[in-house]
């Protein structure tokens, strides 16, 4: 059944791409600075956070700008993909009520839109890397793998949220709050070693923590990702995807009536 569905999705690859790319273009179509907003936004956020945390809070981390930027970009991806993904079904009543194709296509393509936006943002990151003369090592090979785990995690969450949002419109507010809390519960601004050991263990249960830590290690600090982290990331993103699809396929038959 999974194979059959994958096959079906493959048949619709053109549509998935078209929807993702269309949404991507649409997001910048009417803004004066166009695509540069995409670059400006993380830069502004970085500037503010950098000023506050390195000067006022005196955080001592090597390459703190890059450390921070990596965290922001990855977290932005999760927050953006789940926010766009959450409205993937609710935002297209026309398509849901009047035509049929596998409806996870909408969620998948909105996650791809978010991915495109984040990849575009990461251009800034690599420019920074060059400016600060941080060498790129072979450990960069882990990066795509981590990105796949992150994408899978985001897709799983988006699947569940998009389906729940059809039935319960306050899901969006709840999720907003959770994301706000998550931003601080994830080592984005700080490194793990400032936390007491018990707290570290709890923070590491958050799949985003390991994703961000491993991404920094492999890209900035030339350290290979630990097998334990890889396994945890794989398992957690797989579990989120399975739960996401389970919720989605349970609720999907009623979409056209409920929306």
């Amino acid at each position, binding site marked *: 059944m999974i194979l059959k569905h994958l096959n079906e999705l493959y048949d619709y690859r*053109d*549509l998935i791409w*078209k*929807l993702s790319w*269309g949404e991507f*273009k*649409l997001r910048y*179509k*009417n803004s004066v600075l166009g695509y540069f907003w995409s670059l400006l936004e993380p830069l502004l956020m970085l500037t503010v956070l950098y000023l506050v945390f390195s000067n006022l809070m005196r955080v001592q981390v090597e390459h703190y700008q890059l450390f921070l930027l990596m965290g922001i970009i990855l977290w932005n991806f999760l927050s953006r993909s789940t926010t766009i993904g959450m409205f993937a079904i609710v935002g*297209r009543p*026309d*398509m*849901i*009520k*009047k*035509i*049929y*194709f596998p409806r996870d296509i909408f969620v998948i393509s909105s996650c791809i839109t978010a991915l495109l936006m984040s990849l575009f943002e990461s251009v800034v990151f690599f420019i920074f890397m060059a400016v600060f003369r941080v060498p790129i090592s072979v450990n960069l090979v882990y990066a795509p793998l981590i990105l796949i785990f992150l994408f899978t995690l985001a897709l799983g969450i988006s699947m569940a949220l998009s389906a729940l949002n059809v*039935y*319960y*419109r*306050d*899901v969006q507010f*709840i999720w907003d709050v959770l994301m706000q809390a998550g931003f601080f519960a994830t080592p984005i601004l700080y490194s793990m070693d400032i936390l007491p050991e018990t707290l570290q263990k709890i923070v590491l249960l958050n799949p985003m923590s390991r994703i961000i830590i491993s991404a920094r290690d492999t890209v900035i600090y030339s350290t290979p990702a630990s097998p334990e982290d890889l396994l945890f990331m794989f398992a957690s993103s797989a579990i989120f995807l399975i739960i996401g699809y389970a919720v989605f396929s349970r609720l999907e*038959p*009623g979409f*056209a*009536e409920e929306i």
Partner: protein
Amino acid sequence: MPTIEVEHLQKVFRIPHEKRNTIFESLAGSFKPPQYETFQALNDINFTVEEGEALGIIGENGSGKSTLLKIIANILRPTRGNVKVHKKITPFLELGVGFQPNFTASENVKTYATIMGISRREIESKLDDVLEFAGLEKFRDTKLKNFSSGMQVRLAFSTAIQTDPEILLMDEVLAVGDMEFQQKCLDVLNQYRKEGVTIVFVSHDLGSVRRFCDKTLLLNKGVQVALGNTGDVIDRYVYGGNQASEQVVSETEQVEVEGEPETKNRWGDKEVEITGVEFYDKFGNSGSRFNSFDPVTIRIFYQAHKKIFDPVFGIALYSEKGDNLFGTNTELKNLTIDSIEGSGYIDLVIDRLPILTGRFSLTVAVHSHDHKPYDWHDRLYSFDVMPTSRDAGFFEIPCNWKL
């Protein structure tokens, strides 16, 4: 082997009294069971469509036609029963789904084509054809929001017909657009039929259904009333569809006649009273809906309170707008009635109703030879004519083209 199989299909919509839209409401309401109305949209529908066959679905508004089509298209799911579709469906349920007003015509054509299942490479090569067919070559790079709705429909339609469908679901697509556009639609439909595409066609346009469909399904309030040969089913719809409601109509008319002797639509000294008017179709059943070109009999029931010499019965036909289309009476047709007394009826027999389509009202009157009205019912009766041909206008004029 059948392409579409529908077995014991049932669809029930649940309409909650108060909609619980948030988690909070759901939690708060979990103590009392939700109250809802159920609405049976479809009940025990059974049919199959063979490969290359064209099935028409007809019925009144709200009879479940579109719901059925949406279930076949997998947009809605059945409450009970099975729907099996063995080939790829191309839904023409609505044209232009997914159009983005902020994108240009050519961008939208590409997106819409992908939605309709045309591959990217294919549409690149056909883009010029599509724009030309829609007559919009000049507007290739115009944003869709600057298009008129007619232009948008044309664009959508010419994109949609680039598909290579196996099963085509059409819902009132022909209802939009002008005559020229409708003609284009019909041509394309014809082409698909010749190519052996399986078609399911929902329409109020009985003329198109008659021309295109091998068999037809008649629904009434979600119940399958008839399935079979298109001509027979359409007759069933037009002449036997909803006897019940027609009876109600004629009863109210009767009440009006008896209860309000002097309304503004009725006058006369009542020496002869018209007690009722009935229309009879070609099967001899009373009704108020007829196929064009079918025979109709108008029966006028009267009651003469004393012996009346030389009465004249007449009718006048009006369009919905109130134009007088036709009128005649017994005198004009050289029928002299010596005298009438007591109750009886007189028939006006129309061998062939030359009206194309529409709703028409009828004046029925009886008056004396010197035009003193006994009873005049001004436009108190009406009937509908269902189209069977595609000529335009009110009436058919018998004619031939010669070259």
